[in-house]
């Protein structure tokens, strides 16, 4: 059986067939899709009729999803932690102003970090506003004689937009953290496990295996060697991004956090690569397997395009992808600055993944040469 697998062209053909399926499946859907169900927080300080009408309109489309209907302070906190992308506030005098035929205002506080998502919200809100204005105007015309002032009819409502994070962001700035992560993981997957595979090929691994040291020490050694290279690769990518004009919030604490995210991500993906390296005995197989793992991982991480644009079957894959949290954390530090509460979950998940990979690598590494 094993001989057949090795000799048969079947697996070569399968590989050649599977690649386009995976690539097209992922690339074709990972970006360019419609962004919908963007989480927003709604603060309603007005119980009037018009406010209700506006909210109904707001909920009619699927571009946004009101995940919290709360007070101002809490909503702002959600925005700060990255749990919602925007806060829409309907102030107390909204209905009253409209009834007095005065222009009523709506407040939008938005986080521009994920540029495309933010744009979706603003354009959706624009559309809702237009629809609402039209409805209000028509109602008023039916209700009474068109003696109201023309200026009011042109503008029953206005939106006050307040960009809390990443004002003036471009796609380039959005992409930069994702690309830094890409440089990092590509360095990681080849510098970790490949060393193990090469050592097995050249016989130096035998020397390590007969030495009176623990398996964990061998795995830890391979991991730390790879992590050193990978951190350097990550920082080179960061400085190239800065040189090319990417926006980065610079502070000492910010840099320390960038270092932390880069380090934990390196450990995690080196760990993954080493775990693969313990079991892949063939030198030629290793790069192939790593490419098959790492490219989908990167495309599914939201590095290039927001996860909200992915089809619904792909979103869970992005959610269980540890790289998603690395990209999210790095982007948050670089574009939003140091907000601990927004980073903790990301850091815990990547660290957990790093630890898991180290354990798997250590357990998978057999002390024998069979």
């Amino acid at each position, binding site marked *: 059986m094993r001989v057949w697998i090795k000799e048969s062209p079947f697996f070569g053909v399968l590989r050649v067939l599977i690649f386009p399926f995976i690539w097209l499946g992922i690339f074709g859907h990972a970006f360019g899709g419609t962004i919908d169900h963007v989480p927003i927080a709604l603060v309603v300080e007005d119980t009037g009729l018009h406010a209700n009408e506006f909210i109904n309109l707001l909920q009619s489309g699927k571009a946004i999803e009101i995940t919290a209907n709360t007070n101002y302070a809490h909503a702002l906190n959600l925005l700060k932690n990255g749990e919602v992308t925007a806060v829409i506030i309907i102030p107390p005098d909204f209905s009253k102003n409209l009834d007095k035929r005065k222009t009523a205002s709506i407040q939008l506080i938005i986080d521009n970090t994920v540029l495309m998502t933010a744009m979706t919200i603003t354009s959706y809100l624009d559309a809702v506003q237009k629809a609402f204005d039209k409805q209000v105007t028509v109602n008023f015309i039916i209700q009474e004689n068109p003696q109201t002032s023309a200026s009011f009819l042109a503008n029953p409502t206005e939106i006050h937009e307040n960009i809390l994070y990443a004002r003036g962001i471009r796609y380039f700035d959005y992409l930069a953290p994702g690309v830094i992560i890409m440089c990092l993981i590509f360095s990681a997957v080849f510098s970790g496990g490949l060393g193990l595979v090469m050592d097995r090929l*050249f*016989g*130096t691994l*035998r*020397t*390590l*295996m*007969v*030495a*009176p*040291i623990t398996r964990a020490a061998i795995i830890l050694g391979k991991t730390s060697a790879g992590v050193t290279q990978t951190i350097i690769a990550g920082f080179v990518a960061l400085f190239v991004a800065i040189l090319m004009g990417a926006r980065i919030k610079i502070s000492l604490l910010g840099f320390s956090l960038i270092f932390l995210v880069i380090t934990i991500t390196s450990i995690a993906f080196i760990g993954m690569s080493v775990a693969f390296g313990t079991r892949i005995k063939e030198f030629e197989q290793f790069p192939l397997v790593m490419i098959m793992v790492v490219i989908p991982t990167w495309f599914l991480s939201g590095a290039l395009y927001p996860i909200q644009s992915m089809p619904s079957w792909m979103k869970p894959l992005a959610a269980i992808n540890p790289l998603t949290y690395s990209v999210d954390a790095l982007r948050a530090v670089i574009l939003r600055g140091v907000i601990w509460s927004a980073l903790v979950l990301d850091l815990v998940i990547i660290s957990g993944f790093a630890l898991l990979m180290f354990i798997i690598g250590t357990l998978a590494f057999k*002390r*024998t*040469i*069979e």
Partner: protein
Amino acid sequence: MGEFAIETYDLTKCFGELVAVDHINFKVKYGEIFGFLGPNGAGKTTTINCLITLLQPSEGTAIVAGYDIIKEPDAVRASIGVIPQEVALESRLTARENLEFHAELYHVPRAEYSRLIPELLDLVQLGDRANDIIRTFSSGMKRRLEIAKAFLHQPKLIFMDEPTLGLDVQTRQVIWKYIHSLREKGVTIFLTTHYMEEADALCDRIAIIDNGRIIALGTSSDLKNKIGKGTVIDIKISGPAEAFVKAVKDLDHIPIMVNQDTIHLVAANGEQLIPKLIHIAEKTGVSINSIGMYEPTLEDVFIHYTGRRIREEGPEIRKILRR
């Protein structure tokens, strides 16, 4: 510390259907050089890999340096030195760095290894190349460095898998000298080889292994005496060999082996046999091209037990004694 550095108890290793090592039992005393001699594929490397804990035996066990290889592999690893068949040096580091790395692996204190490394490098005549990158070394130099490496943590027992495989005669002799110097320092050495002259030159005792089994064990002279005191005669002939061979077989019931045009036999009274052989040749109409007479080698021992040469592929360099 017991009397034996290595004791095996029905050590067996199977790879699927193939029995690579088949219920091997032997004991190696402290302080001796013990050799495993056998052709390629006989099970030598598999045995070593079991003893150095890189392979789990399928059956049986062994006690190495006082520790069970199955139950206490870590203790075994800490007490032995291994010189692998293939050179396993970090090619991008210098000779000194390789030794330092190895010393750290074996928890040798820095003060001790910084004293030992120059000494060992001098011993293997690499003192002047200490700071050169391994990539620039010849294979003989690399092999010498491997030997220095195995001695760095001063194990009482060193395993060497084909220590001179593929090396030229001069380098091989240099390495033999080092192995002897290790023995003088009280190190026990277990080595495998398929060079019978290497086993002869180095080993205090030799186990001849074929198809995973030990077929003979003893000192070199014990083994040679086992095939009968006497001399080995090689006759090259041309003509109708069959009749000649049959006549020789009838002559004295001597075990003989025919390899193309060479007839190989061991006889207790070689000097008296030669005139008879010439006589038979005349009678059967073969012409003798040459007659060689020499003392038996380990190769002849191997032939005696298996009917084959250790290395079928090429002739061995033999020391032919002309009388």
